[in-house]
């Protein structure tokens, strides 16, 4: 197991380096630069040149790349934001982090609490009307755009309950109910896709297992049906569900961006969108790297969970 972890860790490092290089190249072909964005189009060339020198934009690319990587590794301030002057990028990212974390955690709770049981019911009662209903429910969940679902939920709330969105985010540790009131619908919006995804995976992998010999044996020795399904069936069925954890993280991060926009939450998604609009390339490049790094780390954790759950993987 230790060897397996070491091997996977060693593979993640070049991927992260590659990710940072690609982002750096994309941002380097971006027209205009920070100096221009800060001073405006009308700035005279000498001042522009001076600011560029000050910010080190005239250095060769490898020096700029090296500086960026060093700043990220040492948690440096990563430079100053273009559109909110005087505020460092590190503090902008730190400031917007809790909302996104909050949304992601609630979404994952919704997804796991609903996805696995719904998939199990669907598989155990397969080809019944419950199964058909749940299958349609999950196909729709995979097709509805997150942002449109959010808009529709807001519309329903407003028409039927006279609800109005809260403006300021409140930490769940400060005021749990107030936080719940604000984050519940965003979590449901983002969670629907995840629930659908997990339910579908659970259903199909449990269906494969349901007719295995060891299931029959478990029944034959007189175990209750529930014990057979959960202890013998589900425990094996969740392994394939865990393996697609990486894909779920990708979907989750993409969904976070649009969900935050719909519900006006001030998290990383909103920050990224405003960074793109304001051509704040230092902010965008770091934020995009963080998103990709989360995926890489998520995949790493997924692989380790998989190896831990299924010993055959470790020795391959």
């Amino acid at each position: 197991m230790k060897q397996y972890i070491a091997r996977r860790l060693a593979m993640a490092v070049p991927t992260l380096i590659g990710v940072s290089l690609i982002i750096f190249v994309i941002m380097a072909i971006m027209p205009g630069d920070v100096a221009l964005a800060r001073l405006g189009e009308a700035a005279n060339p000498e001042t522009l040149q001076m600011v560029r020198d000050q910010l080190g934009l005239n250095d060769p690319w490898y020096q700029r790349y090296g500086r960026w990587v060093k700043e990220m590794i040492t948690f440096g301030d990563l430079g100053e934001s273009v559109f909110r002057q005087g505020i460092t990028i590190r503090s902008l990212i730190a400031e917007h982090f809790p909302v996104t974390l909050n949304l992601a955690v609630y979404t994952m709770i919704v997804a796991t609490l609903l996805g696995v049981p719904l998939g199990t019911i669907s598989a155990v009662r397969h080809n019944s009307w419950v199964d058909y209903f749940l299958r349609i429910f999950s196909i729709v969940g995979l097709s509805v755009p997150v942002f449109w679902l959010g808009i529709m939920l807001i519309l329903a709330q407003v028409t039927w309950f006279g609800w109005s969105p809260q403006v300021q985010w409140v930490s769940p540790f400060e005021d749990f109910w107030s936080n719940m009131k604000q984050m519940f619908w965003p979590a449901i919006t983002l969670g629907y896709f995840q629930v659908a995804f997990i339910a579908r995976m659970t259903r199909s992998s449990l269906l494969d297992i349901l007719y295995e010999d060891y299931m029959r044996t478990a029944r034959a020795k007189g175990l209750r049906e529930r014990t057979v399904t959960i202890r013998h069936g589900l425990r094996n069925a969740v392994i394939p569900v865990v393996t697609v954890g990486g894909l779920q993280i990708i979907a989750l991060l993409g969904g976070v961006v649009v969900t935050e926009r719909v519900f006006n939450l001030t998290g990383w998604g909103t920050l990224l969108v405003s960074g793109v609009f304001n051509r704040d390339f230092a902010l965008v490049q770091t934020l995009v790297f963080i998103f990709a790094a989360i995926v890489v780390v998520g995949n790493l954790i997924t692989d380790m969970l998989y190896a831990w759950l299924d010993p055959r993987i470790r020795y391959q």
Partner: protein
Amino acid sequence: MAAEISTSDRTDPTLTRGAWVRYPRSFARFCRRSPLGSVGVGIIFALCIMAVVGPYVAPYDPEEIGVGPKYQSPFVGDFFLGTDRLGRDVLSRVLHGAWISLMVGVVASTAGTLIGGLMGLASGYWGGKVDAVLQRIVDVLMAFPVLILAMALIAALDRSLNTLLIAIAVPFIPYGARVVRATTLVINESQYVEAARAIGASDWRVILRHIAPGCLAPYMVVLTGLVGVAIITESALGFLGLGIPPPTPTWGEMLSKAVEDLFFAPGVAIVPGVFITLAVFSFSVLGDSLRDVLDPRLRGRT
């Protein structure tokens, strides 16, 4: 004369009937095996007609401001689906948006997976160093969520249709590469490839004539599913205000102001979303059915 008779003897009678008979037949078989898949085909067909014919039958100019009063409700008066905040006809905008959505969805996903597919062929066929390098690229691209990589590319380039196509195509490269590489590895070991090599076929001939056709089925399955993802990504970018710049009507862009207008014109918020959902639904259902029909091992599962 004699030669003619002998060829027609050897030919399978179903083959001589020509494509007009064969394709509808295999399509009918597909529909029987997968009713949901045929629903998907039906919706895609309807959306395609809408995209092609829509702009000609649209009652108003989709970009013209003030063809009617602002926030006109649907089903009343001259505007079947009502009007938006600038008094533009929603029906005309939805019809025009269909073309953009479907075109971007199909072109971007095909371009991305095709580049990926070629990488996959090279990777699987030559292996070794080629494979190692290409696989690293695939791993790196795979680390980016599709929407976020697209946003980064749009930030770096200007905002236009071409940028949008590139921004959506690039994130799809690894998905095409993975499936084609896996299939290539299997086919490369097969006897007919060995036989082709034995009679002295060149690398290119083996790849194009013997391996690539075998990769087509799994590639199509992945591509069909990804068209839906491309459509959803295009509309998400439009919703975020990063799609094709206004006034061009796209489904995503129509929704971008929908939250603010929710109380005045719920119709504006509802209609484009229904079409996006239908488009994504039909392509992902078709992708699933193709997989079920083409891969007997998975038959019977969703």
